[in-house]
């Protein structure tokens, strides 16, 4: 009987609170690890799909451009470019000193032009409609054409007595390290939108993120995935998705469902929880919650808060400790970008070997 009672007591013992807590804690840890891993996998998967698609498209584009350039011929009549020219570079960027386009007569007598415009790679045949030849979902850093290794050369002539050589380079930003756009609006870490590991929102990824819909052309002027930009709520209206269009001073961020009001002016405390000051007629700069808003650094001053008041183009970001200049140049690294480069030598000798 004692034996049977012992068994009964043992069966109905249940679990203690400590056991339950320990089990729950361990499961929480396991679930956390699993979720973290799966999030990591999903992020990597996006990168993989992006690079695969880019590889497919870039392969086609590079082959297409290379083959067409290789088979170019001299424009004898000057109908496409000037008479006697073989290649003419176009779309010169004076600030960078590069040509991002090339024009020539093809072997089938088509006047063809490849060029980068508004962040996309395009072609025009015989003066027709401009066509995009690389999906605009890819953030193109730059496209450059160089004749005979000399970036200052604009044309290749037959009289150069040198077989023309065209170098073509295409740089596309990696998905997980998107291009740093000028004039980015401030955004909050709590906003719900696609962002990379550095917390930087992703433009041009083919997904109409919530933040893109709201910030729209201000943040992703070239690569917005949402099409038509909605209008931000005016001052005094409810804050929708952390965005207010507050007053003539400009655009500010706000807390969800709060009313959009005026921002603290220069000299006032930074109180709106959004690290935004309206500092001076020069515009808006960042501030730390609770600190007094000062005048933002102007061009030539040190960057102290990640923001510069640059020039007529508006507000731009800067690296803390650097000097604010006009809009800081975009710095590209082989680590952040996929750079494809190839060189093509024109197919036919410009002078017959028997001449």
């Amino acid at each position, binding site marked *: 009987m004692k034996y049977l009672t012992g068994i009964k007591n043992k069966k109905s013992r249940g679990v203690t609170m400590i056991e339950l807590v320990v089990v729950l804690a361990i499961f929480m840890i396991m679930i956390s690890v699993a979720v973290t891993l799966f999030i990591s996998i999903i992020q990597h998967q996006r990168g993989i799909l992006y690079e695969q698609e880019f590889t497919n498209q870039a392969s086609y584009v590079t082959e297409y451009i290379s083959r067409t350039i290789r088979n170019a011929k001299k424009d004898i009549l000057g109908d496409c470019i000037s008479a006697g020219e073989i290649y003419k570079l176009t779309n010169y960027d004076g600030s960078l000193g590069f040509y991002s386009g090339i024009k020539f007569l093809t072997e089938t007598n088509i006047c063809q032009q490849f060029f980068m415009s508004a962040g996309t790679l395009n072609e025009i045949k015989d003066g027709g409609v401009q066509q995009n030849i690389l999906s605009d979902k890819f953030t193109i850093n730059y496209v450059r054409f*160089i004749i005979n*290794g*000399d970036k200052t050369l604009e044309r290749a002539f037959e009289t150069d007595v040198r*077989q023309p050589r065209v*170098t073509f380079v295409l740089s596309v930003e990696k998905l997980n390290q998107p291009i740093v756009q000028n004039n980015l609006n401030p955004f909050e870490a709590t906003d719900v939108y696609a962002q990379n590991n550095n917390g930087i929102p992703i433009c041009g990824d083919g997904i109409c993120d919530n933040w893109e819909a709201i910030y729209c052309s201000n943040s992703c002027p070239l690569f917005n995935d949402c099409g038509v930009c909605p209008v931000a709520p005016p001052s005094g209206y409810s804050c929708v998705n952390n965005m207010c269009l507050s007053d003539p001073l400009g655009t500010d961020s706000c807390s969800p469902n709060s009313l959009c009001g005026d921002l603290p002016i220069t000299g006032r405390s930074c109180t709106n929880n959004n690290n935004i000051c309206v500092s001076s007629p020069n515009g808006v700069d960042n501030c730390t919650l609770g600190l007094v808003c000062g005048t933002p650094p102007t061009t030539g001053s040190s960057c102290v808060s990640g923001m510069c008041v640059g020039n007529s183009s508006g507000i731009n970001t800067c690296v803390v400790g650097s000097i604010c200049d006009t809009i800081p140049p975009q710095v590209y*690294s082989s680590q952040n970008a996929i750079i494809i480069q190839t060189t093509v030598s024109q197919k036919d000798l410009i002078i017959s070997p028997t001449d």
Partner: protein
Amino acid sequence: MLELIVTIAILSFGIVAVYGAFSPLVKLNNSNSMRFRAMYLGQEGFEVVRNIRDNNVIGAQSWSFLIDACSQGCQADYKTGTSAETSDNQLKPYDDNNFLKINSDGLYSYDAGENTIFKRKITVAQPMGSDVLKINVQIFWDYSGESFNYETVGYLYNWQ
């Protein structure tokens, strides 16, 4: 406690297995991306040699002038043999320690700049007489502790 350990072990195996299966995919994808770039760098190497050959013909030089000295391997970039060439870009013997760099113009070259992972070796041989050159371009790179290479071969002929 035993049940708990078994459960955790099974869960751990599951998680590790999923991650372990995915990790090679990421690595392979990165490798493919690099191979893609290497392919065009290889093509560029061949085109540079072809352009030098053409300019030799135009300039009434021996058609294989300079490039026939590359039997042990050479290095060249998009400026080699042009008026923009500097001492860095000259056709010179291949140096295994010399990586292609991204120069200040954002192009792969041997100018001063940030090293890339790629090295390019151009080897020229004459397997079928003096009127044919066999051009072998090899691109080498290391990634994640492994060495990779891409090789392309083409032939150039004497037009003279």
